[in-house]
């Protein structure tokens, strides 16, 4: 009994903690040495902070109109200038970024769940595979933006509906990625070995196949995030996304289009923020792939 408690107690956790500490420091080192990943995450985190702290960063609300100060160039008072209704552009861009980030994160989160469920089950059950993958094929056959416009037109244009529409168009790509990774895992000997040890189907799917599909999943999720930001902006630009007067990077751009020759700041700043968020996320995704996939790593060195 005594020996057993020793086993279960101190001796055990010491060696475990030591190993975990070692692994963590290795991970941090690898993270810091990957320049692409580092740049991407810095940009994304910065935009995330801006989005989170939007109300505290600005001295004007995004809807506050000052008709006398229409279309003013950037100044100390209005950092990014004002728009055609005399609204503070900095405030609108920052709040627009908040909307973009919220849409992106929600879509990424929802598709991560739906895509994983669909992908794993269709990889494991051949019967489901036929049905689910044909539905995904159908969804993928439509151009994404067109489908999103149709969906928001049918559901009405507000943020929730944009998120729903984007989740629907992004789920098939995630499901495909998870499925293809899971099919490879399913044929591994350790899955057969697990069955030989008496593991149930759901245990194999969720406890053993799912963790092995995480790295392609995370990488794909960052791209879905980026694409969602872009499509949300496009939808709002076309008037099918966030309805004005609420700010969104897309509808600020649209407002700026009319006055593009007299007020460059109205297109440049929202455009820059769209560019930064997509660039940041893509760099993050690429860097993550290099870090998580040992094959690309070796090829580079």
């Amino acid at each position, binding site marked *: 009994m005594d020996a057993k408690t020793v086993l279960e107690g101190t001796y055990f956790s010491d060696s475990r903690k030591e190993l975990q500490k070692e692994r963590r420091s290795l991970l941090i080192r690898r993270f810091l040495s990957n320049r692409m990943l580092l740049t991407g995450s810095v940009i994304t985190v910065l935009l995330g902070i801006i989005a989170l702290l939007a109300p505290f960063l600005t001295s004007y609300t995004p809807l506050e109109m000052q008709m006398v100060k229409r279309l003013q160039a950037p100044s100390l008072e209005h950092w990014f200038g004002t728009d055609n209704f005399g609204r503070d552009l900095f405030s609108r861009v920052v709040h627009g970024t908040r909307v973009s980030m919220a849409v992106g994160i929600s879509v990424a989160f929802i598709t991560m769940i739906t895509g994983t469920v669909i992908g794993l089950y269709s990889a494991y059950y051949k019967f489901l595979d036929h049905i689910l993958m044909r539905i995904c094929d159908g969804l993928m056959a439509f151009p994404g933006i067109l489908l999103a416009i149709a969906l928001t037109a049918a559901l009405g244009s507000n943020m929730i509906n944009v998120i729903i529409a984007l989740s629907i168009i992004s789920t098939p790509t995630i499901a495909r990625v998870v499925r293809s990774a899971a099919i490879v895992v399913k044929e591994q*000997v350790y899955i057969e070995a697990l069955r030989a*040890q008496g593991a149930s189907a759901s245990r194999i799917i969720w406890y053993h196949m799912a963790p092995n599909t995480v790295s392609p999943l995370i990488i794909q999720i960052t791209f879905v995030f980026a694409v969602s930001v872009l499509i949300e902006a496009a939808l709002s630009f076309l008037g099918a996304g966030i309805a004005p007067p609420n700010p969104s990077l897309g509808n600020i751009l649209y407002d700026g289009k009319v006055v593009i020759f007299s007020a460059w700041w109205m297109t440049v700043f929202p455009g820059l923020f769209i560019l930064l968020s997509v660039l940041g996320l893509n760099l993050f995704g690429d860097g993550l792939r290099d870090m998580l996939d040992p094959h690309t790593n070796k090829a580079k060195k």
Partner: protein
Amino acid sequence: MQKECLLEVSGLKTTFLTENGPVTVVNGVSFQVSAGETLGVVGESGCGKSVTSESILRLLNEKTTRYEGEINYKNRNLLSLTEEEMRSIRGNEISMIFQDPMTSLNPVYTIGDQIAETIMIHQKVGKKAAFAKAVEMLRLTGIPSPEKRVHEYPHELSGGMRQRVMIAIALACQPKLLVADEPTTALDVTIQTQILDLIQDLKQQLDMGVILITHDLGVVAEVCTRVVVMYLGEVVEEAGVEELFENPLHPYTQGLLQSVPQLDGDRSKKLYVIKGAVPSLTNVPKGCRFAPRCNYATDLCRQSEPELMGNRHKVRCWHADTNLQKEGELYVADGS
């Protein structure tokens, strides 16, 4: 010697339903295993050894596989159990070790987690207790400082170590029967001996029955008590290990034994080769399945298939009683 029979396979017939029609991979295989006994199953690649072992645990895709015959374990026919009942047998009563230790472990969990998992599936114990048991199992399989090793991931271990881990997982719930499907094929010779010794040791400690599937006759001679020789999905010969090596009756077995290089053999002499190749299972020869490759085949062999005959030493050959004398001729015929 005669202990109670643990597993009795009788007339097992495993058929794959392929797109080109059904293919019978295992055709009427029967054998018995008792506790404390090691049964060797030998044969060429594609003779149905692995499928037989997977059939015992019913690991094959049930939608595309048809089983016939009976697999009796403790007076229960495994083939008639539900998937649920089967799950409680797998890993708990009958366990399996696979050929390739490099891919038999899940890379995302520590080996301790994986051993503990099997214990927790079958026994109602907490995580801590299961982990302590995992350490015990690792120690039993001869892994040094197991309390540190349990927290390592599979990629941090060598092939031999991983096979030990696989054995630890397979034996974690003290199964009554261990099916080892070529457990040493992927390992080098020194590790091979260690692993075989380990299996033998643990067999005695836990009083298990072992089915050892291999194509290595040296392994068979070393550890098995009885041997089943398979050819093209059928059992062609079954005998005690000494009997089989001294007195092989089937021409196929004789051929196999002669294909093994002897340490004191004549180096300039070419090694014996069984002529021809294994026929496809979709195009099984008429009569005796071995007839097209057999040196002694007569019209009788090509016309009708022999039964598995004999009592303690069973053989599936029309000329089993005359083969004994002809064994000498084989060497001569090959001498050119």
